[in-house]
């Protein structure tokens, strides 16, 4: 399970800084990486983690791994929010009938934003993160 915890700047919204921990569990992690690769999210190297932390669950949560997901959530300081990124994390997705898959990360942690997609494109991640931290 890849873990990236950083403060990111949003390229399209220079005023926005987001402290993100990404749980890269499966294919959706590639779209998170693509957001970085395309420069949609830019690591803000000189910044300390800010006042609010976001846990992005990118991929399939298996029953075997669910305790680790919960531990990662509980380790984040308040105030915090969780983003479910992609169908597997939203509901189990294509693996809705599997013997080993948790049918949605909201079975384990509270979710503030459900991002649809299989996988969602990087722009969907950025739009969801911005919506979380910027009042509508």
């Amino acid at each position, binding site marked *: 399970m890849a873990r990236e915890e950083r403060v990111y700047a949003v390229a*399209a919204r220079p005023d926005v800084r987001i402290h993100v921990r990404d749980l890269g569990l499966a294919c959706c992690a590639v779209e998170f990486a693509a957001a970085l690769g395309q420069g*949609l999210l830019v690591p803000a190297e000189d910044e300390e983690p800010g006042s609010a932390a976001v846990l992005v669950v990118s991929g399939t949560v298996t029953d075997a791994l669910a305790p680790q997901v919960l531990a990662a959530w509980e380790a984040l300081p308040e105030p915090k929010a969780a983003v479910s990124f992609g*169908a597997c994390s*939203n*509901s*189990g*997705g*294509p693996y*809705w009938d599997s013997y080993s898959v948790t049918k*949605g990360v*909201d079975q384990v942690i509270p979710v*503030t*934003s*459900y*991002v*649809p*997609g*299989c996988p*969602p*494109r990087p*722009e*969907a991640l*950025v*739009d*969801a993160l911005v*919506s979380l931290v910027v009042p509508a």
Partner: protein
Amino acid sequence: MSDVPAQARGAIALDAAACTSCMLCVKECPDWCIHIESHNEEVSEPGARRPRTVAVLDSFTIDWGLCMYCGICVEVCPFDALHWVPQHDYAAPDAQGLRYGIERLEAFGPR
């Protein structure tokens, strides 16, 4: 919404007028994420000996939380009632917010 190519497969829109409630999309969806309810009505037509039976669409729901965007529903629809749209910015604060009915599916826009 950020700029994305026009042909991006972000969501699936419905043209309710074209839907006959044949249920093919419902039956073929691998995630069982489409639900249709309909009922039959008799429509009498002037000059016709018997009234026609027509299917009336009562509800059409896609659960984007389950959808895996395979596009089988779009391909299998005999009446082209479903089409891809590029929108991707429809994240919701709860799971129910990802269950779109006729109104929101049509609001994605025309073909």
